[in-house]
């Protein structure tokens, strides 16, 4: 007689563990996942680790002596503290300015909001060092304001004060957009409720509005801080003796060929960047009271009358400063020798379109290649992470986060060090530049794609699968089209960033593949301000034109 236990039926044969089954069901998609993860690891994580290793390991292996030697040199700590001070100052000022703009735009009767909005976005779509160029032109030794207007002969434009001015203005839009978004998603009924309970306008502002936007304020501060730490062009051009980590790393690498010091400085940049980034990701963003409902909350404008006047003047001052800087650049691009010979001319443009044309087409070509790759890869990764939790997803998630949080400088140095030998001998090629562009801008697309995916009913994709489509097909025929808005965000961001990036690619350009931003930098350094201004103007114009065309395409495509 045999006894058969009824409690636990025997395991079915041929059953594979859940995680294996995921792979077996969709080998193609898993293949894509594996490929994407591997690429991200090689092109995002590996270079950063290589730099960190270089910082502590010399030709003779791990050498504590060298490390201590480098660390004990004053330039390391000076530049580290400089970076922190500049970052903190710019972050506070830019956030305050951004808050002012955002509050006026969403809560007051300030006239000319569209115009203010448009101007406030200019710095986002142009290389940050356009500002630096303008400042040199306006306030430099032969500056249009300092010398022409005020007659000051020995104005010193270089240093901390200029950097703060420039970075604050250049990064105000980041804070503005961030805070504006949150103000818009807060139902003004909350403020009305406070008013109806008898609170004064000030009480409502300080007890209701301000606490509700605090997460956005903190998040803006941290983001601007990260941007400031990462900024290379402005400190390079206008820092003078005020060296930041990005500049110091560059000069150690390129000026003194001191790889170890360069790597160490670049690694040090990770400290403030990663700290700010992690605080942002794991603390600030969890503190938001705003729930995304998908429908816009009601927005009524309640603040009018006397208080609006000083607020409006503040906004106009910011806008005027931005406009002044940009118009100066445009003006100078048409001027023979600004401050010396102010006759109008097209010479600089002639130079750009003849001798300097290559660099412009290079930038357009490489950014043109990098942009669609960045955007589609971003959507694909978002899909893989949100919808398909393949084993190993965490690697992909962390590698992309790392590449986003890490400053361009460390990525640039990492690329040079990692891809200079077989089998990954890529230095000097266009490929390495494109890879840097893609990796640096991937995360924004992933973020936008993930947010959108969470709002797309999962059953739409299930409907496609159950009708017989594979997951790969479902992604390209159903998911990707539905991600169009996120795709557009990602495309615009990737394009602007790729065209205006400097900190990473400056290490990667070669004689064959030089980029417009690098050219502008060297033009400014050699004081060919007119040509630099012409390049900047063209760059801003090109970005604006492409964005406009993309917007048109998007609009016509969604009209059906």
């Amino acid at each position: 007689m045999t006894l058969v236990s009824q409690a636990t039926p025997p395991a079915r044969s041929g059953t594979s563990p859940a995680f294996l089954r995921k792979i077996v069901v969709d080998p193609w998609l898993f293949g894509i996942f594996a490929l994407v993860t591997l690429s991200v690891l090689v092109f995002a994580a590996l270079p950063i680790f290589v730099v960190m290793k270089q910082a502590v390991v010399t030709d003779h292996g791990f050498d504590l002596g060298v490390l201590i030697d480098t660390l004990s040199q004053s330039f390391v700590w000076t530049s580290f503290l400089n970076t922190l001070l500049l970052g903190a100052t710019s972050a506070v000022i830019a956030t305050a300015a951004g808050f002012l703009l955002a509050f006026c735009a969403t809560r007051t009767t300030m006239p000319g909001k569209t115009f203010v909005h448009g101007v406030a976005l200019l710095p986002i779509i142009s290389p940050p060092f356009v500002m630096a160029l303008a400042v040199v032109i306006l306030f430099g030794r032969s500056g249009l304001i300092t010398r022409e207007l005020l007659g000051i002969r020995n104005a010193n434009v270089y240093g901390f004060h200029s950097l703060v001015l420039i970075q604050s203005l250049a990064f105000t839009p980041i804070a503005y957009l961030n805070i504006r978004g949150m103000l818009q998603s807060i139902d003004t009924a909350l403020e009305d409720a406070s008013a109806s309970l008898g609170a004064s306008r000030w009480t409502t502002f300080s007890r209701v509005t301000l606490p509700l936007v605090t997460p956005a304020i903190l998040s803006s501060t941290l983001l601007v801080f990260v941007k400031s730490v990462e900024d290379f062009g402005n400190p390079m051009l206008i820092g003078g003796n005020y060296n930041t980590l990005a500049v110091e790393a560059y000069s150690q690498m390129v000026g003194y060929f001191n790889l170890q010091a360069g790597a160490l400085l670049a690694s040090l940049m990770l400290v403030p960047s990663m700290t700010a980034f992690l605080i942002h990701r794991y603390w600030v963003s969890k503190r938001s009271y705003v729930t995304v409902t998908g429908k816009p909350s009601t927005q009524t404008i309640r603040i009018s009358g006397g208080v609006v006047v000083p607020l409006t003047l503040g906004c106009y001052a910011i806008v005027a400063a931005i406009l002044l800087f940009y118009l100066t650049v445009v003006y100078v691009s048409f001027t023979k020798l600004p401050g010396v010979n102010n006759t109008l001319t097209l010479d600089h443009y002639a130079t750009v379109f003849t001798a300097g044309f290559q660099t412009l087409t290079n930038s357009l070509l490489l950014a043109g290649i990098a942009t669609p790759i960045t955007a589609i890869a971003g959507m694909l990764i978002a899909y893989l992470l949100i919808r398909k939790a393949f084993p190993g997803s965490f690697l992909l998630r962390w590698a992309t986060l790392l590449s986003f949080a890490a400053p361009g400088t460390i990525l640039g140095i990492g690329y040079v060090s990692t891809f200079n030998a077989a089998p990954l001998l890529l230095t000097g090629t266009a490929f390495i530049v494109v890879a840097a562009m893609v990796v640096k801008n991937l995360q924004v697309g992933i973020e936008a794609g993930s947010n959108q995916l969470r709002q797309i009913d999962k059953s739409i994709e299930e409907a496609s699968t159950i009708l017989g489509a594979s997951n790969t097909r479902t992604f390209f025929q159903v998911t990707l089209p539905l991600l169009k808005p996120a795709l557009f965000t990602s495309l615009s961001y990737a394009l602007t960033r790729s065209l205006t990036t400097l900190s990473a690619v400056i290490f990667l350009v070669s004689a064959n593949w030089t980029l417009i931003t690098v050219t502008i930098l060297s033009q400014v350094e050699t004081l060919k301000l007119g040509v630099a201004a012409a390049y900047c103007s063209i760059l801003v114009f090109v970005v604006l034109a492409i964005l406009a065309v993309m917007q048109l395409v998007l609009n016509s495509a969604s009209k059906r």
Partner: protein
Amino acid sequence: MSKVIFSNITKRFPGVAGATAVDRLNLTIEEGTLVTLLGPSGCGKTTTLRMLAGFETPSDGTITIGGRDVTNVPVNARNVGMVFQSYALFPHMTVRENVEYGVRLLSLPKAEMKDRVNTILETMALAQYADRSPSRLSGGQQQRVALARAVVTQPKVLLFDEPLSNLDAQLRERMRDELRAIQLRLGITSLYVTHDQSEAMAISDRVVVMRNGVIEQDDSPLNVYSRPGTGFVAEFMGKANILNGKVEAVDDTTVSVRIASTVAFALARNGRDFKLGQAVRCVVRPEHIRVDADGTMEAKVRRVVFQGAYVEYLTDLEGQECVFLDTDYYKSGVAEVGQTLKLSIDSRPVWVLPETETATLGKAA
């Protein structure tokens, strides 16, 4: 060809300690029939349906469709159709493109593909909307597109997850009848999930009542309503009084049960065994109790709810709660709280619950 069999299907979700969404479920869907899974929220209906679709993998057990074990077959190779609660129409495609989507994947000759799509669009009265975006259709029309898209590929099994819950009450009834008509015409084996008992009874060949991942009763709509296997089923299938009683007398064909000093019934025994003095629970539907000046039953009114078409009384029957509906209130007037009413019960539909709560005894009767 497309009979569906769930054998010993269990589903545990990882991370939810101890919770079993579906527990050793055995269910057969005969070829061409429509079976409804009915039950309260969270009882495992959707999970069961999604395991048949292939979106979830059973932790244990097997599922066969037409004799073929599909337990480990991926979703897109199962040849099942599904109508989603949210319809899940592709918003970036027209109605025609939506319907065409699955057919294209069958690699049929172009002419046949066109033909199939056009035929189904005609059948569903959608031809005139073929080139519209689904967002510009009414809820009922969207529902029909979803159905057209699901059946055009001629799936072996058709699945519905609360397909009507997004529609308003009137449209819901019409669409319900349309769904059933099309299912019958195509003769397609179907599994239908709902938590609306009247919808379940109206549309199904069999109703499967679930509770906490377990089947409570698997029976015809009529039996599930009038011969519930458990008190849970009785109460889930509509308003029910479950009254405690005692067996007073048993003979060859009848059993006499006393509920209260003024109420006793003689019921057909139908071959079931009863012992003298045995405690039993009787299901009495409110619609089978009426106000009757000549009635022997007496109950005291506790609450009166006026509902327009009828008055709902909650009464006290010697300590037991008893609810009934009076549609004739206009004749004798509405009673007041505290008043004692004379009532009578139509004893023919009274049902004595089988003793064990887990049995599916409706079938035995």
